[in-house]
């Protein structure tokens, strides 16, 4: 039987993968993907804690649902930003988007 620790370890690994994408990718869409992975890792944690630590309540699942909703918001706004940046700067590589830098 997988225990809570199993899920936590899995989520830690998934989180680290997402983090790796976020800090090393140049492509802004890839960074967004990394963020999605990290959010997923957090959601797995929430659902797992819900199941193992407090099965009487649904707070973990509700939290995860809200995270998913906000992830959808973040994806929509983030991708809109990418599109806008691509239109005006003709690149989606974050290290080339530096017009606000001194």
């Amino acid at each position, binding site marked *: 039987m997988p225990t809570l*620790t199993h899920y936590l370890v899995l989520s830690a690994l998934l989180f680290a*993968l997402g983090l790796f994408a976020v800090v090393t990718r140049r492509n802004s869409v890839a960074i967004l993907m990394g963020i999605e992975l990290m959010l997923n890792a957090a959601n797995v944690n929430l659902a797992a804690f*819900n199941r193992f630590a407090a099965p*009487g309540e649904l707070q973990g699942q509700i939290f995860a649902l809200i995270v998913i909703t906000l992830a959808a918001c973040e994806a929509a706004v983030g991708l809109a930003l990418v*599109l806008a940046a691509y239109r005006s700067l003709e690149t989606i590589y974050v290290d080339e988007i530096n017009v606000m830098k001194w």
Partner: protein
Amino acid sequence: MTGEALAFYVLAALTLASGLVVVTSPNIVHSAVALVPSFLGVTGLYVLLNAEFLAGIQILIYAGAITVLILFVIMLTEGGTGMRARQRNEQGPIGAAVAAAMAVLLITVATHTAWPRGAGTLPAYTTAAIGRSFLGANILVFEGTSIVLLVSLIGAIIIARKEE
């Protein structure tokens, strides 16, 4: 090894392997497509965790909507042109080190903490319970989230529209 354990390991392997492809693939489209099995693996984990509503939403939003959106944007911005561009910046090694250290840290915490074990069982039909909770105890959270959703909807439209 029970069926549940087998299912867990299969799903975990699916999630992590696809996640690895997402993170490492030099081809951004491959990365995006690999998100789908990763999300589906997480969906399976939700099923194992008795969160069937969450699982449904996970497929609908992540696999169905977000991935499509990501692919859509990739195709609108890169198409076939940016394929040869360098995908990784110069902080690859240190990034990998930090990510690995984070993983080690989190795993250490996960394995060395005495997590509380809750009594009780999840309701048999969590969808109804979630719905009741959203319109009951969590109404404020629900409304707040819907406002954020509306605002980001409008914001995304305004940001992405072409200026006349």
